[in-house]
């Protein structure tokens, strides 16, 4: 699945774990692949791991795209 989910780092814990905000939901993810990440930064999350730091504008755009896709799915246009 190529499309990563944008998330904002809200807490960095021990053992390469961070808490992120994804569209107002809090999730625990691994930051093993980008260990230098800081609170307030946006990251692209894939399969439970942060993969890359992204700027806020890109994060908002990605999130808008994902919300659009979710709307389509919820409306039943996906089989």
């Amino acid at each position, binding site marked *: 699945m190529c499309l990563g989910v944008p998330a904002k780092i809200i807490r960095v814990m021990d053992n390469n774990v961070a808490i992120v905000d994804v569209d107002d939901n809090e999730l625990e993810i691994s930051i*093993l692949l980008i260990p230098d990440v800081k609170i307030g930064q946006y990251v692209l999350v894939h*399969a439970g791991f942060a993969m890359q730091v992204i700027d806020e504008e890109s994060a908002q755009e990605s999130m808008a795209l994902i919300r659009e896709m979710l709307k389509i799915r919820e409306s039943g246009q996906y089989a």
Partner: protein
Amino acid sequence: MRNDTCMLKEMMNAIQEEDREVSLMEVCGTHTMAIAKSGIRQLLPPNIRLISGPGCPVCVTAQGDIDTVIELVKQNIILATFGDMMRVPGTGSSLQEARSGGADIRVVYSPLDALNLAMNNPSRELVFLGIGFETTAPVVGASIEMAQKMNLKNFSVLSLHKVIPPALEAIFADPEIRVDALICPGHVAMITGLDPYQKVAERYHKPCVVTGFGYSDILQGILMILIQIRKDQPRAEIQYGQIVKERGNLVAQEVLNKVFQPVDARWRGLGEIPQSGLEINERYQEFNARIKFDVPVIDDVPIKGCSCGEILTGKMYPHECPLFGKLCTTLNPIGPCMVSNEGACAAYYRYHPKRTVS
């Protein structure tokens, strides 16, 4: 690059001025889905063809490998897998059917969930099905490293992971496939960096532009390709600069190289491609399900009438498959290209169901 309407129109105009016959391959399944959804295909002049590529990891998993997994779950294990794999038809069955028949199969979002399942079920063996390219393999690799640190005895991975560049070489080397340039996968390159695409571009003298997934990204990527063609300066280039750095993610690359080694692998539609698969290294062999369990190697039995192999290599459009939209739909898929969220047939079925796209 932002979704400014004026900018989009300018780019579209510039693209529509192209009068050369060019075939661009959307390598990545997510690009196929994004392009189909965006309607860009219908706006392109007829001389610019966009064809699907092999960048859907579920779709390119060989039929025999699917059957192998269905055999594996008959043993007393818990199989943890990404959701996409559940409905992919094997020759006789599917994971979904196997689950209805009593096999213990759990859908997970992350291999970390699989690690948790192993920890919470110490008396059971947990096998994680590793499917995906260079974006996913480091995540699975990291999980194997974590399992080793935790000394987890009941966790292993069946790796069907693959890497993209050898498949691109196979496509360029195939005389039956007419491809002039590649729209390269943004998130795979986020990990690998530009280097593998530079090698492909140089060797085959074709533009390879690493592109993002928004409408403006895709248009800009196509425009960058056309400019390279017009100037006869083919090379690897990054359109998706916000996310893709030339060197990629070095930590992820280190995990990949530490946990996995390249092996020959079977691809649906492309056959066996040397050094295109990832097998778990000897150092982590206690986490290799192929060594831990009886994992049979099964020959591919082609699905009658299914054209996934041709569609994955751009030789055919989904509409040209005799089963498309009739016997094979998203509700009743015959082949993986209709099942996967990134499958070309699923993309066409959802966004171009009645149109014939030339």
